[in-house]
């Protein structure tokens, strides 16, 4: 049975991340993981005319880098799973128009990175595809326009706000061996603990992450100690302590092996408020830094839990609360797998 417990998928085929590609903007390139990205841009425009084109360029560059790293071409892909944060996921749609791979657009807000990875793995496991390309992107300026104010507007943001990561991450999933094996995924349910402040996503999303992590342990019989690292997507400095507290109440102690991509991606002295967020946050940190650590043997088994806030500005203005979700994927260093 592939369904394990209530919400966890255990893949039966050996599935691997064959290659990844990452492209980021200036603030990320200047961050502590700057060396781990394939492509970096010195300014937010990425040489393009407007912000949306810049984000599309990031996604295309990430995919190109991924193809190059894998030694593959787009016509060797059976399926393209992709998403972003912009209305109707146009960045992914327009990228799919260019690469001509059969396409399923996905939206899970900032959880889209692990949503695409989990589903890509399931589709390869189920023999619906041999090789699947996934990609997600976010851009600080497109997200500001979509969810907040014009980029140059001089409004003051609180310390609980997050800074949307400018970047894109792509990966190729198949059953061809590589150093990174995908073992399981835990699909989250939508939780809403009544947070209404769009400048406090950490507090809104922490319960969703805690729920997915606790459910994963219940479904699999595992405990936090079974993982070298349990990494959340973008809970930031505000949501991370809340996550640890919520899991402590359920008798899971993550204090020694939890990290957050939103805190890994920037240095504390960068002007990013509580930390990074966005689809690209978990994608570029996982596909760049974490897999590199795994290749170097520093990490053996990790659980990447990407968190997403599923509202839009209209819902917030209508005084609705913020629904949130988290999806987790277990990635393991393959035993001698092609290193």
């Amino acid at each position, binding site marked *: 049975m592939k369904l394990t417990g209530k919400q966890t998928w255990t893949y039966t085929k050996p599935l691997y991340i064959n290659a990844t590609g990452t492209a980021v903007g200036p603030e990320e390139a200047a961050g502590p993981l700057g060396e781990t990205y394939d492509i970096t841009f010195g300014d937010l425009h990425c040489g393009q*005319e*407007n*912000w*949306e084109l810049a984000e599309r360029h990031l996604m295309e560059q990430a995919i190109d880098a991924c193809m190059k790293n894998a030694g593959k071409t787009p016509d060797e892909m059976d399926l393209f799973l992709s998403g972003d944060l912009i209305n109707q996921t146009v960045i992914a749609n327009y990228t799919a128009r260019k690469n001509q791979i059969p396409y399923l657009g996905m939206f899970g807000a900032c959880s889209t990175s692990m949503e695409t990875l989990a589903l890509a793995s399931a589709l390869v496991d189920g023999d619906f595809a041999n090789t699947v390309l996934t990609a997600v992107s976010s851009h600080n300026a497109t997200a500001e*326009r979509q969810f907040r*104010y*014009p*980029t*140059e*507007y*001089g*409004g*003051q*943001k*609180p*310390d*609980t706000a997050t800074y949307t990561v400018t970047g894109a991450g792509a990966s190729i999933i198949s059953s061809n061996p590589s150093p990174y094996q995908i073992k399981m995924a835990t699909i989250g349910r939508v939780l*809403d*603990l*009544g*947070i209404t402040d769009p400048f*406090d996503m950490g*507090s809104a999303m*922490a*319960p969703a992450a805690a729920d997915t992590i606790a459910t994963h342990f219940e479904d699999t019989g595992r405990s936090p100690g079974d993982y070298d690292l349990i990494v959340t997507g973008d809970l930031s400095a*505000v949501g991370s*302590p*809340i996550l640890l*507290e919520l899991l402590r109440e359920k008798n899971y102690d993550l204090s020694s092996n939890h990290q957050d991509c939103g805190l890994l991606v920037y240095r504390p002295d960068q*002007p990013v408020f*509580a930390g990074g967020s966005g689809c690209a946050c978990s994608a570029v940190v996982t596909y760049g830094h974490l897999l590199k650590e795994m290749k170097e043997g520093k990490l053996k088994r990790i659980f990447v839990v990407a968190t997403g806030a599923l509202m839009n500005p209209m819902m917030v203005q*209508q*005084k*609705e*609360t913020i629904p949130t979700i988290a999806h987790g994927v277990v990635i393991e260093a393959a035993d001698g797998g092609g290193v």
Partner: protein
Amino acid sequence: MGKNEFSPEQQAYKEKIKPLQPTPPYFVNCLKAFLIGGLICAIGQGITNFYITFFNFTEKTAGNPTVATLILVASLLTGIGVYDKLGQFAGAGSIVPVTGFANAVTSAALEHKSEGLVLGVATNLFKLAGAVIVFGAVAAYIIGMIRYLFQMVL
């Protein structure tokens, strides 16, 4: 899960996370707003004095060129990417003066330039500042009527 009705679980969650959340630095924010807001007003006064001293303006008529100058400077600072950083530091101190209004209009214009001059810039120009104009006009009308009534009665 209707509007503004929170379940006991949601209420409990909000209470629980309160000690884990950073408290906004209210006093420091007020101080910064006071200093920068005051500085902008002092610069405005300087510009007014300049127009009165060097041009043919009186204390009453110098207001218009002063406001125009402040709007020009704020719009330029918005365009070169400085005003949003000032706004993050000063908060209300740089939003409340006329320079904040100029920033709201200019930033919206810049943001929507990619959609063209008519449907982009012109349509969205007052996206943020529109509310200020609406409530400014409504408030002026109400205060004007009250003043008129008082004049009739007294």
